[in-house]
């Protein structure tokens, strides 16, 4: 194992150790900072009661729908805008107007439009993901080397579909994929908030537990999100490396 990995592991152990020490010392009440040693038991209890599986599945469902819708629309619209200068000019001020609105500010409209529903949660999650992908896809497509587009044209690939397939999408892939990866993380960050207003999922369970001062349950779900994010990011990077294996390492 490399020195870096060892140091990283050592840092993590020291962090958890200090957390445990502070929690046990009695300086801080256990409800304010539950000791990490008690967390496995809490997790087992959540699993045996069936909460953990149900909440993770529900959140995963909102997350995946939001992720696919937001990513697909973000990449599609970002690409289209980068391809057509007229569209680009027309969208500039719309994007400036809507972009700074945080996804959570859409909660009232999400409820009015979709009710307290899974769709509402997925909608809120998709907004942040949409903007990330919109801007990265836009920049990636704008950055495609025009010489390669001319090359493809000189070998007969002149239609928009052929240009997209033979040049633009593969050339923009590194940028588009980095946007997709950033969106993957952004999505997990909004999942909890999107469920706070009563939609079944990790966020809702955390709110319930917090209301009862069951802070160890809150922490179990915080770590669950970290784990789910870590897993999805790892899987994505593996896929990304495969798609981009042509890049100079």
């Amino acid at each position, binding site marked *: 194992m490399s020195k870096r990995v060892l140091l990283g592991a050592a840092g993590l152990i020291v962090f958890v150790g200090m957390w445990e020490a502070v929690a046990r010392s009695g300086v801080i009440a256990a409800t304010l900072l539950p000791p990490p040693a008690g967390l496995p038991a809490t997790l087992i209890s959540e699993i045996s009661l069936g909460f953990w599986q149900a909440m993770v599945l529900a959140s995963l469902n909102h997350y995946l729908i939001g992720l696919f819708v937001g990513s697909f629309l973000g990449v599609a619209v970002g690409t289209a805008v980068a391809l057509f200068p007229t569209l680009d000019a027309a969208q500039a001020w719309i994007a400036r107007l809507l972009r700074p609105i945080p996804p959570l500010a859409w909660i009232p409209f999400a409820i009015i439009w979709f009710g307290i529903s899974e769709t509402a949660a997925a909608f809120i999650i998709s907004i942040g993901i949409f903007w990330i992908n919109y801007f990265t896809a836009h920049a990636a497509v704008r950055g495609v080397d025009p*010489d*390669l587009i*001319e*090359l*493809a*044209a*000189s*070998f*007969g*690939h002149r239609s928009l579909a*052929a240009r997209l397939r*033979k*040049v633009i999408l*593969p*050339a923009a*892939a590194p940028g588009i994929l980095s946007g997709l990866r950033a969106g993957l993380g952004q999505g997990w960050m909004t999942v909890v908030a999107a469920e706070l207003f009563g939609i079944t999922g990790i966020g809702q369970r955390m709110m319930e537990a917090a209301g009862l001062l069951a802070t160890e349950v809150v922490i179990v779900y915080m770590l669950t999100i970290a784990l789910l994010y870590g897993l999805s990011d790892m899987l994505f990077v593996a896929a990304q490396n495969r798609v*981009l294996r*042509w*890049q*100079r390492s």
Partner: protein
Amino acid sequence: MAAIVELDGISLTFAGTNAPVFSEIDLGIERGEFVIVVGASGAGKSTLLRVIAGLLSPSTGRIARKTEERPDRRPIAMVFQEARLMPWRRVRDNVALGLEGLAVERAERDRRVAEALRLMGLASFGDRWAHELSGGQRQRVGIARALAVDPDLLLMDEPFGALDAITRQTLQDELLRIWGETGKSILFVTHDIDEAVYLGDRVLLLGGSPATVVRSYEVTAPRPRNRDADEVSRIGSTVKADLSGLFDHGGGI
């Protein structure tokens, strides 16, 4: 005469400008002929190639392409100065670029790609990525990609301009060998006069503003040529003198 492509009074003015890049260019390339275009930078040499390739439309004039139209080949293929390989494709798939979209079966495509790679001495390089190649190898792939579509006319835009002297000479000789074996017509742009007179049957000097074909030189020296042969270097000196004469008169730049 069996001209493969004939330009008749071609002029080009880019949209938004009123100074033509070139005007009234008449030029015919015979089947199997090796024609060189030289001229100062900015004289419109590369632009002329793009007009012939159909990437740009001339403002006036007529281009007659007497190339053989067949669904399994492209009559004109281009080689660029920077090899322009797609970094996300392996060498083999870069060479196949022009075959995609033609009526060529998978097996036939593979055969033609392998044949083009073999011709360029790259038979064992098919699986490489572009970044694993040297500058000379990249340019070989660029030429193989053009040969794979079996064109009647090869348009070459300063293909060896960015290479070191040794690699350039090697590739010049290989190009002559392939030209001899395949009988393709070649229109080759360069700013290197020695390269021009070593390779060409005919050298056209492009100059003036707007540019026209100022002079044409027949290089009759027998092949294979010696780079230092009197006849070759004599024509080279004439072209160089004419080219600097153009500068003295303020044309071409």
